[in-house]
């Protein structure tokens, strides 16, 4: 499940990479990947669509590393599973 999530996220982010060909979970979104705030919004909107989640401005302000996005997505998808099972 997590591996699929990482692969999907990589596919979303890769077209926006500047100066690097691959990304890792420990990469800083701005400092290592060269993604600016404008492109980051495009990425987040695409993440919302592909993962069927809704992100809030307060949540995205906390995102610094690729792994932060994964953690947020795990939290979001788990919350959805709990809602569906209750």
């Amino acid at each position, binding site marked *: 499940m997590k591996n699929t999530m990482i692969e999907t996220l990589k596919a979303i982010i890769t077209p926006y990479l500047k100066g690097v060909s691959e990304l890792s979970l420990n990469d800083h979104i701005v400092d290592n990947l060269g993604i600016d705030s*404008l492109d980051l*919004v*495009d990425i987040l*909107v695409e993440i919302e669509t592909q993962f069927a989640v809704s992100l809030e*401005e307060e949540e995205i302000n906390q995102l610094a590393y690729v792994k932060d996005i994964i953690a947020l997505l795990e939290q979001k998808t788990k919350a959805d599973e709990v809602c569906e099972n209750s």
Partner: protein
Amino acid sequence: MKYARIVEELPHKPPFKFVDEITFLNENLIKGYYKLPQNAFFFKGHFPDNPITPGVIVLEIMAQIGLVAFGKFLVAEKAYSYTDIFFTSSEVKYSNPSYPGDRITVVSEKIYFKFRKLKCKVTALKDNGDIVCYGTLSGMLH
């Protein structure tokens, strides 16, 4: 928010205001136009004896109507504390030239308005239906 008030409240002023009227507006779409004056300052040099609207001016018309005016409406609807959207990026293609006296109608369709960014699919057309320019424009709230 009334159409005329949005035009009045745009931060741009002559000779760099390129919005005459907003003709349609809802949360997904805006339409408006600007008639290129025969004596506009940019026609004097672009080009002498052969006036053609510079591409950057067409893009500015698209941005003022399709992003800034649209953004004013959307910001008011969402009751944000921000007041204006600043044009930040574009990816456009130019199809046909425009000349003094042409009326440029801009149609801007919202792709998304999230996380303080407005991204739109924008088209600029002449009255005969010829597309002058089309593409995507983005802006950020400040």
